[in-house]
């Protein structure tokens, strides 16, 4: 493959030799816009001789020599209508004025395997303006929710390095192994989180079948196509950004203090007929702080969390070049630090959770001949992470905060011993976990090389070009761990001499070192032929695309798993339009994956789409002037998803050694039971869309209605046990349907010369329904997984709290616990069999992935000031509360109690304890307390169902752009000062922690509220 590329390269060099007759005409002049501002970097090229062009300099001036007579000069600049000027003789001081591009007709968007004029796009494609992605954030993935119609995204953690969002295009439309989108960066599958947002030149989300059919078996979940900045001929442009971010936890669960905890523990015991846990003296001691060993009062948040932390980000890019070669280079640095408070006296090294990323990118384009373009893309990302040594992740730091009550152990015993209540991760003090367990580090290094060669084949037929791309991605990483643990103790009382009687709960582990390293690589080669031509009113284009991809990783541990993952595909597209009014497009992918049985590896994925723009008729323009532009789009097609299971080659029956038997050793058994006729999952996608501009182009509206019908979703079969297979085989049995609508609306208004404002809103609604889920026998129809949304929460239907003993006696028997008392949760007997058990669990409302996501923003610009405000929200999502730190006293002595429990209005307390029936609140948020797990109350039911929908003031930005002549003299063209606030407010029903995290007990790293000051200078 490489040899051929070199051959191509050499051949193309040869083409450079071209002969032109010259008249020695010289022209020079200035290019400016209609306001008279000079334009820098405008390309001035004699038509048909791209090698001879020039670029306007910092003063907008250009000079071209050795031109021949009647040469047509083409002046082009991004965002401006190109201008052609015929030269008849030498001329100095030409004044060229470029018109700003107002027509949307020539706007170009990135589509699958290429670009198209926006007007001709008939698929459902959302192009995101890179400018809107310049908000400070760890990853582009965090900016999509609420900004991009058609995307549903969730962010579950605020921990540096884990604070990336998961997102789905048009929601989750399969319950197979992979429901996430294919992400292509510069044409090659890549990781969005490794990309510096500032490097993005274009960002497109391909949603329907016509847009993704060319991706064949990989297109079913939608495709994100990102291209990175490339250099433009002209002056060197240097862009420097630096920012400092203040970050703090916007919401954290609050727990009761020792005295309150003790009193509630007593209530929990006494109301169930047990003796109180603490005496009055105990309670007094908790409050007094006299004995911090046996009567501690610890707020673990204060112990291990800081109020805030600072993040830093720097970015430097340079781009420029001449007519023969152009470059773009960037350097990025990001450092985030967690809100953990280290005890510097405990060690000399860093144990905080840190995330830092260094990124480097170079994109170089060279015109080898006037028809040959060689591009090189280099991209390197280095990520370093640091964390305390305990565990594989840092979740224990949070689960221990939720689990350790204020009275359990002190931060440190007065005899210097460190505490642990037990040996589980959440029974050890988070202070110890953070400070005394050594540290772990992760280093990830990922590099990519893209080499691309484009050859115009205009000499064969006009508009034909061919492009080859070779890419090699190499990711390597190492995790090292220097783990240790001190002896940990738990005090059970005092000895006669008054010293503490402690028992060792965890034994010391001397520092140990371990390391795992991995590497994976992906090679990719594609060949693409493009054809685009206009014949009068007819525009045609064609695309033929072929690629192979090969991925292998060192983490594969078995001979089967280590077989490289390969793809091979041929796809094509043909478009035709007439007068920019009628559009038709056909796409087809013929793609294959190594994962299937030979003979079943390849499949066809066709799609067709059509568009109609009635506003192109004169009649419409005259009679319905309200609409400046109106387009109907419809597409239908089939795409596939081969990433259906982590199991490789599910059609193979493989064999391994069995357990020993006394009949004879070296027995063998099936390791995996294969099944025939396996195929990829297919999606039939339908999309109907409308694009319109109306009311003097001030409103811009796009709405898409879609339907996605999945069949052949991979499921591991639920065979009767009597079939006797060693492992359940896979089959294409599942089916799912998703429907929805997404769209966006914007409004722009210019008031006077200095003020303009934009309002933008977008909306995504995607609901799904499983239409076939292979399931064995069910006893009641509501137990079926078919006919309900995927991932819908299931539980009992709570009818409130039992009023009194008579209420308990007259209700169906609840079988989870022998004794059910007034104030316990009363459930609905769904199947009417007179008892409440697991058979009464029904699907409840929604899953924890929202069905609705929306966002709206407004921008105001006045002179050099701008203000933008962005709200984001989700709807139709639920999760369950529960677990340690939520269910009070369910684990007896462990598990914190939320301060809302202490509020008498929130819990049901019998009059026999409180002395008043007023505390028998039927609408209390918590049932009658129980010391120990209450199997009746503490189970999934509507009682604990949380509404995860929210509206968030996601982002506010104020910036001022400084453009002064004195700056120019210093070589600085402009400086922008910006202040950003992120996650500034959230309106929701959860309140105790962030609803977007959908955490059952809040034992997660909270989403952060940040304030960023950024300085951006352009040179």
């Amino acid at each position, binding site marked *: 493959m490489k040899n051929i590329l070199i051959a191509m390269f050499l051949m193309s060099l040869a083409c450079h030799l071209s002969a032109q007759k010259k008249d020695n005409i010289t022209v020079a002049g200035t290019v400016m816009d209609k306001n008279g501002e000079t334009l820098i970097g405008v390309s001035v090229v004699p038509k048909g001789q791209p090698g001879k062009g020039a670029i306007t300099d910092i003063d907008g001036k250009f000079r071209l020599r050795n031109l021949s007579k009647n040469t047509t000069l083409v002046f082009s600049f991004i965002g401006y209508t190109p201008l052609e000027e015929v030269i008849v003789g030498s001329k100095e001081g030409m004044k060229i004025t470029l018109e700003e591009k107002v027509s949307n007709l020539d706007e170009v968007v990135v589509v699958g395997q290429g670009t198209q004029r926006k007007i001709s796009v008939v698929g459902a494609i959302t192009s995101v303006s890179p400018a809107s992605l310049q908000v400070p954030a760890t990853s582009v993935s965090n900016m999509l929710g609420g900004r991009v119609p058609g995307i549903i995204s969730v962010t579950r953690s605020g921990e540096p390095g884990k604070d990336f969002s998961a997102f789905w295009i048009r929601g989750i439309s399969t319950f197979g192994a992979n429901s996430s989108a294919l992400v292509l960066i510069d044409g090659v599958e890549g990781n969005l989180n490794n990309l510096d947002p500032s490097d993005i030149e274009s960002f497109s989300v391909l949603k329907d079948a016509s847009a993704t059919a060319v991706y064949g078996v990989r297109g079913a979940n939608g495709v994100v196509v990102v291209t990175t900045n490339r250099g433009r001929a002209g002056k060197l442009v240097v862009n420097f950004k630096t920012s400092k971010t203040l970050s703090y936890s916007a919401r954290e669960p609050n727990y009761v203090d020792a005295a309150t905890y003790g009193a509630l523990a007593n209530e929990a015991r006494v109301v169930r007929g047990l003796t109180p846990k603490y005496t009055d003296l105990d309670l007094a001691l908790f409050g007094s702080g006299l004995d911090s060993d046996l009567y501690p009062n610890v707020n673990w948040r204060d112990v291990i969390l800081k109020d805030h932390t600072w993040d830093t980000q720097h970015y430097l890019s340079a781009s420029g070049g001449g007519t023969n070669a152009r470059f773009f280079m960037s350097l990025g640095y990001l450092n985030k630090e967690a809100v953990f408070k280290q005890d510097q006296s405990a060690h000399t090294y860093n144990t905080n959770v840190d995330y830092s990323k260094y990124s480097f990118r170079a994109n170089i384009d060279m015109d080898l001949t006037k028809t040959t373009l060689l591009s090189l893309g280099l991209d390197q990302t280095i990520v370093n992470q640091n964390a305390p040594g305990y565990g594989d992740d840092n979740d224990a730091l949070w689960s221990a905060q939720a689990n350790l009550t204020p009275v359990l152990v002190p931060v440190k015993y007065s005899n210097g011993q460190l505490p642990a209540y037990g040996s589980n991760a959440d029974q050890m003090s988070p202070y110890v976990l953070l400070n005394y367990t050594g540290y772990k580090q992760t280093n990830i290094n990922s590099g990519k090389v893209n080499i691309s060669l484009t050859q115009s084949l205009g000499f064969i037929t006009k508009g034909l070009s061919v492009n080859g791309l070779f890419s090699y991605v190499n990711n390597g990483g190492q995790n090292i761990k220097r783990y240790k643990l001190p002896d940990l103790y738990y005090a059970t009382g005092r000895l006669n001499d008054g010293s503490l009687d402690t028992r060792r709960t965890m034994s010391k582990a001397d520092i140990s070192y371990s390391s795992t390293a991995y590497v994976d690589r992906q090679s990719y080669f594609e*060949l693409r032929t493009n054809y685009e031509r206009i014949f009068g009113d007819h525009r045609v284009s064609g695309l033929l695309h072929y690629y192979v991809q090969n991925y292998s990783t060192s983490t594969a541990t078995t001979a089967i798993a280590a077989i490289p993952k390969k793809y091979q595909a041929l796809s094509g597209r043909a478009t035709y339009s007439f007068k920019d009014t009628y559009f038709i497009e056909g796409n087809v992918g013929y793609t294959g*994956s190594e994962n299937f049985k030979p003979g079943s590896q390849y499949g066809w994925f066709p799609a067709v789409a059509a568009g109609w723009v009635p506003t192109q008729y004169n009649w419409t323009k005259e009679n319905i002037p309200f609409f400046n532009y109106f387009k109907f789009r419809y597409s239908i097609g089939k795409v596939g998803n081969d990433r259906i299971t982590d199991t490789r080659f599910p059609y193979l029956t493989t064999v391994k050694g069995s357990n020993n*038997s006394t009949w004879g050793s070296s027995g063998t058994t099936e390791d995996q039971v294969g099944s025939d006729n396996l195929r990829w999952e297919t999606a039939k996608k339908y999309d109907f869309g409308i694009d319109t501009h109306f009311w003097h182009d001030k409103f811009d509206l796009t709405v898409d209605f879609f339907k996605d019908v999945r069949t052949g979703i991979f499921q591991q079969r639920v065979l009767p046990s009597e*079939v006797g297979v060693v492992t359940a085989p896979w089959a294409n049995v599942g089916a799912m349907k998703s429907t929805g609508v997404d769209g966006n609306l914007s409004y722009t208004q210019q008031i006077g010369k200095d003020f303009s404002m934009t309002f933008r809103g977008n909306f995504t609604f995607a609901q799904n329904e499983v239409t076939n889920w292979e399931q064995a026998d069910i006893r009641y129809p509501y137990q079926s997984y078919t006919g309900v949304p995927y991932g819908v929460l299931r539980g009992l239907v709570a009818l409130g709290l039992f009023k009194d003993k008579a209420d308990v006696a007259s209700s169906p028997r609840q079988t989870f616990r022998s004794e059910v008392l007034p104030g316990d949760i009363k459930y609905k007997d769904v199947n009417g069999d007179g008892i409440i058990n697991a058979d009464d669990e029904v699907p409840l409302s929604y899953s924890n992935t929202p069905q609705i996501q929306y966002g709206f923003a407004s921008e105001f610009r006045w002179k050099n000031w701008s203000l933008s405000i962005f709200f984001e929200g989700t709807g139709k999502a639920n999760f369950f509360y529960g677990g340690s730190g939520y269910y009070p006293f369910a684990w007896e002595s462990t598990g914190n109690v939320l301060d809302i429990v202490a509020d008498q209005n929130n819990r049901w307390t019998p009059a026999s304890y409180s002395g008043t029936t007023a505390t028998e609140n039927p609408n209390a948020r918590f049932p009658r307390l129980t010391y120990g797990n209450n199997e009746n109350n503490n189970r999934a039911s509507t009682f604990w169902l949380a509404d995860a929908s929210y509206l968030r003031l996601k982002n506010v930005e104020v910036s001022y752009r400084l453009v002064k002549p004195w700056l120019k003299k210093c070589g600085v063209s402009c400086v922008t000062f910006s202040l950003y606030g992120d996650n500034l407010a959230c309106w929701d029903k959860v309140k105790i922690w962030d609803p977007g995290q959908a955490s059952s007990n809040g034992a997660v790293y909270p989403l952060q509220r940040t304030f960023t000051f950024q300085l951006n200078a352009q040179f």
Partner: protein
Amino acid sequence: MKKLRIKQTLLLAAISCFVGLGFSSCNNYLNIDSYLYDMTSLDSIFSRKQTVEQYVFGAAALLPDESHLWTTSFAPYQVASDENIISWNDDRHAGMKLLRNEITAYSGYFDNWENYYRGIRKANIVMGRINECKDASEMDKRLLVGKVLFLRGYFYYLLLQQYGPVPIVSDNAYAVSDDISNLSVERSTYDECIDYISNDMEKAYDYLLPNANSSAEFYQPTKGAALAVMSRVRLYAASPWYNGNSFYSDWKNSAGKNFINQAYDNSKWGKAAVAAKRVIDLKLYELHTIPRDAETPILPSTVSSLAYPDGAGNIDPYRSYSEMFNGETPALNNPEIIYSCNAIVSGDSPAWIAFPAQMGGGNGLGLTQGLVDAYKMRDGNDINSSSAAFPYPSSSEAYKPIGAGFSFSGFQLTANTAKMYYNREARFYATIAFCHSFWPGISYTGTEVGYKNVELTYYKDGNGAPNINFPNDYNLTGYTCKKYIHPEDNLRATMRAKAFPIFRYAEILLNYAEALNELDAPYTDAVTGITVSRDVNEIKSAFNRVRYRAGLPGLTDAEVADKATLRDIIKKERQVEFACEGKRYHDVRRWGDAMTVFNQPVVGMNVAAKTSQRELFYTRTTLTNDLALRAFSYKMYFYPVKRSILDRNAKLVQNPGW
């Protein structure tokens, strides 16, 4: 210009080549054959005899280890029987949970269903593909098929034993891509299962060898093993609980057929007798005996002193019985073993739970007084009707020490032994360890005192009392089982290798006697032409071998004459002969006696008494410990089918009562 054209044409040609190259490799690019070429696949397995054998071994690896009697056992039978009580109610001794009604259809304990069906599928696969094997002779193939037929029948037998009637799946392994409804099979009736198992065993009998080819194949099934399985299941089928039991009159399949036959059929006893007789007629097996020597005690006058098998005159009863289990006689040389497995000797072994902590054991197995009292006096009399020559002491005497220690047949009785354990039959001493039993454990060669030659006591303050760290490791009844412990065995040193007899000849003899006793009329087997009838001499000849080997008198004419009397005698003989062999639970069930037998309170010695309270210790005491709160209910006749298994097959019905 012309030159340019040429260049461009060349370029175009290069690109065309390039594109062509890419596509010509299309067909191969996704091919993974090069990776799979040298890997074993299911197809390659069936092409060679050796790999088919390995696959059969893999199927046999799904057989439960039946030597795990108490700890991490495959089934609850031993622990849940009336023979014993365990000191822990935990996951490793989950048999305790059955009679405590802690097991439900949702529990994961003893979840054997799917595994057994996996074995059945593998057997079916081998039978379906054996002809693909190129290098196996017809004889080789017959033998392999015989082994998997045995396996299939055996897995069904295990299923039947645990769950009652089960679905019989197609003899052809199911295609996994088939529709679920085609793969869901209803349970067959009990008799259909018995016939299916017998059928497989009949064919296996044809194909298998009479003896193991080599010592390496010793644990593999033989003709005798196949017939022995048939004997056991035929006896089950004839027994009252499964033969015309109206308790199950309402339990029917979808076609209205009773799962348990509702018409008592006496000829089933005939089938059972024929099956047992066929094993006897093989003339390959005999009870294990050791010749008598100077240490052998004098035979009581009640016992025939003719040479075995007409009497016990020339054998040592204690050694004949004990050395079969404790590893003294190598399994290969033991004519009594029909089918066995390599017994676990360390880890969760039967020895571990019985051994005291000093010798590395768990000290958690308590045998019940009921079992202890079932053993006869040396002259064959019951303890409740003992003779003057060998009297069972009154309660005022029972606790007193015998005064002087002595040894016989290599067995040592300590001076402190209570009189109630004096002059008991040989099998008593081979099976039961009691307070003041002597534990030699002589393989221990270390210097730690008390690790061997221990006289163990179960007093509250005795040397069998628990260590403070493990307060529950004590014996609840004052008795434990030493059947599987050799005098040399010591968990702190070495343990002898042992074979666990799954089928031994004594069972066949007692099966035969029992079946004959129940026969109302002579029965002739259509296939073999064997005729059986209630021939008292046949009964005596079979039964008395077991008695004589134990050094006990044979049946009297009066005893043989009456069917009911003999039935009780046989029941009691089985209780003693097969004590702690995992058989009792099934016997009591098939006789339909479980509601009575398993609802007896657990009685033992008073282990709360201290050494100084010797008389109090030797008082029969009903255990009131939480662990002893056990009750058998009707549903427990069959183990529940796990709910998740029912959930996967709409046609399956649960066992009654669960």
